[in-house]
């Protein structure tokens, strides 16, 4: 695809360049980007020619992939193969050096797309849990829904206020309609709390709502981190080695919860070292090595009849 650079870049692509200039490149050489291809409407996430390099080191090398609604994709591979970077590029925690990520038809690499709005629909769970240490469990879960809900409410009210002022000067039949405001900040908070308690009850930690994360075990923290992501009603969940930092004892309870989510039809991308889990839950397994997706397919094929030598080698070591 890189040879196509001769054709003039679209306006949009040029704007995407801003602020993403990779480090260590000579100042006056313009980094040419791969042109955007049309987005496949069937895919929930589409990755086009994703390339990420940290200075000289290329971590992801021209990955193109589609993830459809309801798919559970497990990403496996040796360490340093770019699994985590791939996952972090999906919600722009890492800015790609080249290529594009589409989520529900929105180009996340385009600076005109509000990444914060898009991220609300993509939950992410980290290896190190990353619960907010300064808040109790309930606040951890409700912080984002309440903040975003109240923010939108304020925005609507402000808009209404200006519309009202404008309406004074408009003709009788030209009055602009107001945005309907049905909730209040209090109600949003109450709903978020209720939702959070429901989610906590589901994982059996309702009694821990008022405690701080530092007093919980790793497994409990990770389950709360998952629930925190769920509270935003995401379309897709990204798991970045969710069980790697846990005691072997705790792994089971976290995997159980993820499995439950999978059974409910949540779209998932899971970077994992738990091969048994990948085999059981995933509908598609990707094997990454050296920044490329070397082989992928249904778990039975990947684990049962691997074709690639590197994959055979890897599986022989871990299984």
């Amino acid at each position, binding site marked *: 695809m890189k040879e196509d650079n001769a054709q003039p870049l679209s306006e949009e692509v040029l704007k995407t360049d801003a602020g993403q200039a990779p480090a260590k490149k000579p100042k006056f050489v313009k980094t040419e980007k791969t042109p955007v291809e049309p987005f496949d409407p069937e895919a929930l996430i589409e990755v086009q020619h994703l390339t990420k390099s940290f200075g000289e080191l290329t971590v992801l090398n021209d990955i193109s992939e589609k993830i459809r609604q309801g798919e559970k994709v497990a990403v496996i591979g040796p360490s340093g193969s770019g699994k985590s970077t791939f996952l972090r590029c999906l919600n722009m*925690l890492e800015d790609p050096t080249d290529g594009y990520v589409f989520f529900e038809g929105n180009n996340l690499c385009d600076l005109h797309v509000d990444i*914060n709005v898009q*991220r*609300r629909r993509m939950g992410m769970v980290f290896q190190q849990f990353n619960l907010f240490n300064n808040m109790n469990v309930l606040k951890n879960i409700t912080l*984002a829904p309440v903040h*975003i809900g109240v923010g939108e409410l304020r925005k609507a009210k402000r808009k209404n206020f200006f519309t009202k002022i404008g309406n004074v000067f408009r003709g009788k039949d030209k009055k602009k309609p107001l945005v309907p405001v049905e909730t209040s900040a209090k109600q949003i908070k109450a709903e978020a709390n209720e939702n959070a308690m429901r989610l906590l009850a589901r994982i059996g930690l309702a009694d821990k709502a008022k405690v701080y994360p*530092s007093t919980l075990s790793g497994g409990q923290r990770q389950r709360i981190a998952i629930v925190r992501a769920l509270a935003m009603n995401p379309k897709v969940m990204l798991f970045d080695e969710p069980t790697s930092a846990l005691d072997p004892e705790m792994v089971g309870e976290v995997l159980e919860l993820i499995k439950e989510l999978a059974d409910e039809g949540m779209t998932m991308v899971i970077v994992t070292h738990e091969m048994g889990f990948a085999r059981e839950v995933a509908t598609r397994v990707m094997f990454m090595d050296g920044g490329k997706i070397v082989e992928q397919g249904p778990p039975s094929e990947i684990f049962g009849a691997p074709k690639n030598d590197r994959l055979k080698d890897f599986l022989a070591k871990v299984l």
Partner: protein
Amino acid sequence: MWESFYRNFITNDGYITVLQGLENTLIIAIVGLVIGIIIGSVVACFQVAGKRNKVARGFAVVGDAYTAVFRGTPIIVQIFLFHFVIFPVLGIRFDGLIECCIVFGLNSGAYVAEIMRGGILSVDVGQLEAGRTLGLSYATTMIKIVIPQAVKNVIPTLGNEFITLTKDTSVAGYASIMDLTFAFRTLTDGGTNVMAPYIVLAICYLIIIAIFTVIVRLIERRLRKSERR
């Protein structure tokens, strides 16, 4: 010597001057610290955000210059400069107390900026990432998640800064502010009976600092509530 001090302090209503001085010292220290924390936090935020945002980088350079100037000159020189040069040249007439609050605030802001920057950097980057992945903006994540934890981490250092600032206010007298030191100087009979007033002055500062230390400890303990002890 104690007789003359007693005479000046009680009979000649010297205690009123001293109380006035104590009040001014406390006002300058506390207001100065508050201004310092506000300025320092803002500067620190720009410096931290400057890594990824070009606008913030511009502000960060301004912040760097500010820090360099106010950390690079003695507080007494700053007081002279502001009191005798900058404010008169600009034609601003402030009450001496407000003037001192501003100067001490600006001065401590430079130190607090570095303290806060260290505090923000000490918070795990995962906290910021977690906030961002939930769809909160960079600013919201900083305000709601990173800075509260940073503040908790820097409370002991900030207490130290507060104590230093309180003691530094003893030079406010040079801008003809009736602070604690200046108040006791008026009780020395024009420099003839210095021993008793200065000993009492030292004890006064000791007591103030001891009280502040306890308060800082209490605040710290309150903020550490979320940690397992």
